[in-house]
């Protein structure tokens, strides 16, 4: 299967320079990007299989002696290409704050407790139907230094590999109805409202497990679609 990667699809991505998110000011290229054709080097990409996994890597609540504190949740969905076809064999990696909004990283020193039963990292590979599933706890909101009283909405970081190095995606999954959305420059760096909402999971009652865990569904669409005859 040969896929193409139209650049127009990237129009919904945030601009490199988004001054409301202050760290972009010194970390965005000023020179115009040089347009190049997609060669073999762009149209191929890393391949990871089940050998990169271990049983339970997708369950963030079972990595320590005890269970983490917080609201247990299931996060699941499908990874699709631009034609909405499932993408199997995608390495999906996640990392997140604990239920108190604290990351297991020495740089995060804000006054919220670490949880000795929660590291906050997980990985899985999508199955033949492009399906992935994680079990974790809902991450808390946390303050950051971008502006006065800045707080990040609850989110889980996602990293994905698709059909090629052009489908590589690092993004964040948000939770529905978060009151912090209007104030977050990272979330709002995506200007198109529909595109922004594609980063928000939906509550999934059908797959919520009684007496055990809430479920959220989040489908992810990666770059890449089949060439139509018109484009030959």
């Amino acid at each position: 299967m040969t896929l193409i990667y139209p650049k127009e699809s990237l129009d919904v991505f945030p601009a490199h320079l988004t001054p409301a998110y202050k760290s972009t000011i010194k970390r965005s290229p000023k020179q115009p990007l040089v347009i190049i054709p997609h060669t073999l080097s762009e149209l191929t990409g890393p391949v990871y299989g089940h050998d990169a996994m271990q049983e339970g890597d997708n369950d963030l609540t079972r990595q320590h002696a005890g269970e983490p504190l917080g609201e247990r949740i299931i996060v699941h969905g499908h990874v699709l290409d631009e034609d909405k076809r499932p993408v199997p064999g995608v390495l999906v990696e996640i990392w997140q704050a604990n239920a108190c909004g604290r990351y297991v990283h020495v740089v995060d020193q804000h006054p919220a407790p670490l949880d000795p039963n929660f590291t906050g990292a997980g990985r899985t590979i999508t199955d033949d139907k492009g399906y992935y599933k994680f079990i974790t706890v809902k991450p808390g909101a946390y303050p950051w230094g971008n502006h006065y009283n800045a707080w990040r909405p609850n989110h889980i970081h996602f990293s994905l590999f698709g059909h090629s190095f052009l489908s590589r995606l690092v993004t964040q999954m948000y939770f529905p109805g978060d009151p912090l959305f209007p104030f977050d420059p990272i979330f709002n760096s995506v200007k198109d409202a529909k595109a922004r909402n594609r980063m928000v999971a939906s509550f999934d009652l059908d797959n919520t497990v009684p007496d055990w865990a809430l479920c959220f569904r989040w489908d992810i669409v990666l770059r890449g679609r089949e060439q139509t005859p018109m484009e030959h």
Partner: protein
Amino acid sequence: MSEITPSQTVGPFFAYGLTPDGRCEWRPSDVYHWKETVGDNLMTPDVSGERVRIEGRVLDGDGVGINDAMIEIWQADAQGRYASRDPRTRPNTAFKGHGRSATDKEGGYGFTTIKPGPVAGPNRGMQAPHIVFCIFSRGMLRQIYTRLYFADEAANQTDPILALVPKERRDTLIAKREMRGGEAVYRFDIRVQGKGETVFFDV
């Protein structure tokens, strides 16, 4: 209209998830651990070719080292073959051609790998040996792509991608070779912005 999922920044805290054994110090205590999937040493016992080090720093618009960036590289093997799911094109080694390095306190990164061979280019031409770089960091809402070319390759003169880069900026893509203790080291600094800004590609 396409409905792809937008990119968001990797943020400052990715190291424990994506590069747990890398050069970024993240551990608040020994309680926390995670296994690495993708590291900065690409060597496999069965790979052939010249073993090289790739080293450099990632610098921001003030020339300050970015201490929370992640570099990913993607390259062919010494015979110019990319790892693939397709058994017809797949190389006969375990070499994955993909690596990940977090930056350290000074913005330094590094990889141990083999020098790739030339690979097919557009219009039945060939491309000079190169490595694709993809850079992520706090303050980058989307990844940026560039390429490393090797200073000692005559094929750079005819590379179809380098030819698209303004002459005066091509140097930013050429890694200089030096020998250190019998090992070839290619130096490749990435200036995200400002004087000597590295060429990044719109792909």
